[in-house]
């Protein structure tokens, strides 16, 4: 992985595990010795800070309104060893961000990214303009999908827009909540075939994460999975993805 990489994490459909995945991936990368930053780019319902049990004094909303710099709003997650920029939880205020402000924010993020090995963007659900723009803006895109038809359809929609916006881009798929590895591979193959046929290009597989009740347990306790259950199947799966990046 090269220095200052930006990786957007999208899914189209909500609730498939983006935020949990982004947090755990940031943690896994940190454990591999990489300097990681997690940027909560969910402009509607940000909740990275909630999942981590942090109470940020400043967040992205203060940055966007010009009251603080991105550096001011950067918080260190001591348990995980990585930095985060929190969103504005539950206000939905930022979802109407105008294009020019979004570009300014991304420009600031690009500059901040130079201080890290990798910056992860936890994108919101849906296909709004800002989500689309940030997917195309990042150096790489990871698309999370589960085996549910709605998730597959929405992941496909993300990939279709990405194909239009970034003809050169190479998106990768993360299958989450797979009942088994084989089932996860089947989910990927389904999406791959749809993309190859309808879009003329297929994404690669970044990895498969098995469904694991310890994920919910860690989230409920606002702790990090890799700290609390380092040998859980989902933990092992995410670490494999982190190594492959």
């Amino acid at each position, binding site marked *: 992985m090269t220095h200052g990489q930006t990786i957007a994490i999208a899914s189209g459909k909500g609730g498939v595990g983006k935020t949990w995945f982004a947090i755990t991936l940031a943690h896994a990368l940190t454990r591999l010795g990489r300097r990681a930053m997690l940027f909560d780019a969910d402009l509607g319902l940000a909740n990275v800070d909630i999942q981590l049990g942090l109470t940020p004094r400043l967040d992205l909303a203060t940055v966007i309104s010009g009251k603080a710099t991105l550096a001011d709003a950067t918080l260190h997650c001591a348990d995980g060893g990585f930095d985060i920029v929190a969103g504005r939880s539950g206000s939905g205020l930022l979802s109407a961000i105008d294009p020019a402000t979004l570009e300014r924010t991304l420009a600031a993020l690009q500059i901040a990214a130079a201080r890290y090995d990798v910056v992860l963007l936890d994108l919101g659900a849906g296909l709004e303009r800002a989500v689309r723009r940030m997917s195309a803006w990042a150096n790489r895109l990871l698309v999370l999908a589960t085996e549910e038809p709605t998730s597959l359809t929405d992941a496909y929609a993300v990939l279709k827009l990405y194909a239009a*916006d970034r003809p050169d881009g190479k998106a990768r798929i993360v299958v989450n909540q797979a009942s088994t590895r084989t089932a996860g591979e*089947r989910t990927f193959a389904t999406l791959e*075939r749809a993309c190859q046929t309808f879009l003329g290009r297929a994404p690669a597989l970044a990895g498969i994460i098995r469904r694991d009740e310890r994920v919910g347990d860690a989230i409920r306790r606002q702790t990090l999975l890799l700290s609390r259950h380092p040998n859980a199947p989902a933990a092992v799966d995410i670490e494999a993805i982190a190594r492959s990046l």
Partner: protein
Amino acid sequence: MRLKRYRAAGMAQAMAQVRAELGADALILATQRLGNGVEVTAALEPDEAPLTPLVSADPKLVAALDFHGVPALLRGELQRGDLATTLAGAFGFAALPLEERPLLIAGPPGTGKTLTVARLATRLVMSGIKPLVITADGKRAGATEQLAAFTKLLGISLVVACHPVTVGRALTRREPDTPVLIDCPGCDAYDPAQVEELSALASTANAAIVLVLAAGLDPAEAVDVARIYASAGARLLIATKLDLARRLGSILAAAGTGLALAEAGIGPGAADGLLPITPAWLAARLLSGVS
């Protein structure tokens, strides 16, 4: 994409369901044994217009393309990143092939063909090369005099031709390797007879047709004219009167038909009024002077 899963006792039944519901175009994405039956995942992608890429939304760039009236079709491409780079990708840029073939400087009436010929001749003379200048515009009153004033000043000869045969004769008589500039009468793109005449002249002279188009035209009109000239054999474009019009949408629209951008007329001077167009210069020009 519409995706649906079908369960049935056997493959044939499942496929029949797929066809009945999604039609013959349905794509089978996956099939799987399930208990003592099968599950088929099928999808259908409705035909839609291709997605337009999301603009990178550099507000300054968007405002500039708005101001210039750049056609929507070109915008997506030009908004993708650094303008000089996207321009270089979207359009052809080429030097005039003065050393290879005679140039037929053509275009609708009043676009500045004669002045362009004079300027190109001036540039050549100033670099120590004496071109042969021919005017095929012998019929129009005053056209010859205007050019003759220039060639006299430059100390080069001017051939006045009212017929393609005269042009051909002048060409065979010239010194080898002499660049040739032919000033054409204004050619109304919408008059097939005039366009035909232009093509005929180009083939007699074995010349490259260079379209001279003035800035400020309606972009859609510019596209129509450029297409007609391109079908008559034009491959190069000279944009004139950039000092008299601020909006360059029509020039980009014309270049978008496949004509390579060669030169731009940017001021009244005979010696410095014409500039070779580069992507960087064009980008700067498009971004500056937006109000």
